[in-house]
């Protein structure tokens, strides 16, 4: 299959991107300054991320669509205000996660942002569940640009009037350069920021404008270190079809009202695990010293019994040390529990720790 390119591919090349294949797309892993510089620039200034490979699924409908979607997602969508976003997941009957996503209620229905590697299958699953009554559009004509970091609001405001009025996890349509952009105040770095949905033919010029105003392009490499410092899950690593939201320690993302009544796909398993507890739980892990424990690193107790596995591990540039997330047996999930990580045949000490590794700077309430 031919590798797909986003509408910003040329711009990445001009900016000396090193490319990798990611979910069938040629994506920039880093630019000339490297992952650590890019990471730090995002935390101190403003980073631009091309996330156009992600799916932008528009589903059109009225209250009957809301009712249908409540049978799928563990969210209180009836009480979700228009232009408000929620983090959620698409699950199977066993509460295994097909994908994690952001869903926003818009005037026309819903906008769901899906992972690139999952979006086509998600579309198929949702089509089957929703039937033919609702028009669905996995929009390939729009790019998705994230701008993240403390200077992002000033920079974006100077191009799109009024975006500074958005609260965290809300969005709206804005007019800029004779077209409609959908902007949400959200992101996946632990920083204040925005995601902008823009038609493909306008994306390059828009990003060039952001660069002129002082933002810089950031690759997927720094996106990974940023989200890991922020303690956020990445599908295919922390989350997959064999993990449930309870095991992934994402109970907060399930609406309280839905936890008592259920009625969504996977609710039985979730309610069972809520009572009995999950046998394994996602935790933050800090290796002692400088050792990096990568994905698939085995976790042991002091009696040489394997108690879990690392799902993501790297060096955290803002933490200035190694960080990781993984799953451990429930009895080892308390903060400050001593564990051992097997790296290159040797066992190294590490500690279970609280997430996030890096404190968030989200803007919660403006209005």
């Amino acid at each position, binding site marked *: 299959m031919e590798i797909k390119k986003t509408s910003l591919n040329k711009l990445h090349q001009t900016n000396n991107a090193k490319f990798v294949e990611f979910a069938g797309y040629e994506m920039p892993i880093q630019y000339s300054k490297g*992952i650590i510089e890019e990471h730090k620039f995002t935390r101190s200034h403003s980073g631009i991320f091309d996330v156009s490979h992600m799916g932008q699924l528009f589903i059109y409908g009225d209250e009957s669509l809301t009712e249908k979607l409540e049978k799928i997602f563990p969210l209180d969508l009836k009480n979700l205000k228009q232009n408000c976003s929620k983090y959620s997941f698409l699950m199977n009957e066993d509460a295994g996660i097909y994908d994690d996503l952001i869903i926003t209620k818009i005037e026309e229905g819903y906008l769901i942002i899906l992972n690139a590697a999952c979006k086509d299958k998600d579309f198929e699953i949702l089509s089957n569940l929703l039937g033919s009554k609702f028009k669905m559009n996995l929009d390939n004509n729009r790019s998705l640009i994230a701008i993240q970091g403390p200077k992002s609001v000033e920079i974006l405001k100077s191009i799109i009037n009024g975006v500074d009025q958005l609260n965290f996890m809300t969005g709206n349509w804005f007019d800029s350069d004779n077209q409609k952009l959908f902007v949400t105040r959200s992101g996946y770095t632990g920083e204040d920021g925005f995601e902008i949905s823009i038609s493909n033919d306008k994306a390059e010029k828009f990003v060039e404008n952001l660069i002129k105003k002082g933002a810089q392009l950031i690759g997927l*490499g720094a996106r990974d270190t940023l989200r890991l410092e922020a303690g956020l899950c990445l599908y295919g690593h922390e989350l997959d079809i064999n993990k449930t939201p309870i095991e992934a320690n994402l109970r907060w993302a399930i609406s309280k009202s839905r936890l008592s009544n259920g009625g969504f796909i996977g609710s039985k398993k979730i309610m069972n695990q809520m009572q009995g507890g999950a046998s394994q739980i996602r935790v933050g892990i800090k290796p002692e010293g*400088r050792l990096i424990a990568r994905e698939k690193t085995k976790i042991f107790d002091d009696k040489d019994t394997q108690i879990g596995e690392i799902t993501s591990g790297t*060096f955290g540039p803002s933490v200035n040390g190694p960080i990781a997330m993984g799953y451990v047996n429930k009895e080892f999930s308390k903060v400050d529990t001593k564990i051992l990580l097997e790296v290159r045949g040797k066992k190294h000490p590490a500690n279970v720790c609280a997430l996030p590794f890096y404190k968030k700077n989200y803007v919660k309430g403006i209005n």
Partner: protein
Amino acid sequence: MSEVKFSKEHEWITLEGDVATIGITKHATEMLGDIVFAELPEKGSNVEKDGTAGVVESTKAASDVYTPVSGEVVDTNQAIVDDPSKINEDPEGSAWFFKLKMKDQSEMDSLMNKEEYDKFAKESSS
């Protein structure tokens, strides 16, 4: 000091008397990206030509460091373990990895000179 020689695994080596100093090339650091971890062989241990003699990790991945010649490890550079970013800053100078007392200096003969290595590095990265 002898001419600097290079291996296909992107190590550089110089010889002074029978003690070889070994590190990784600038080209290698450019391929690896930001180095955030380094592990070196133990002083007093013996390493064999083309065997592993350490590890470097970038933000992206871990890579083995090989030794282009055999010998006994007589010194290691603790400064790069304490601050691995030094490897990116000065890979072919102050950020050397380890020193070996060589057994067989003829092992140097099969290694590349600078011109040959530059050509090899250019070809292997394109």
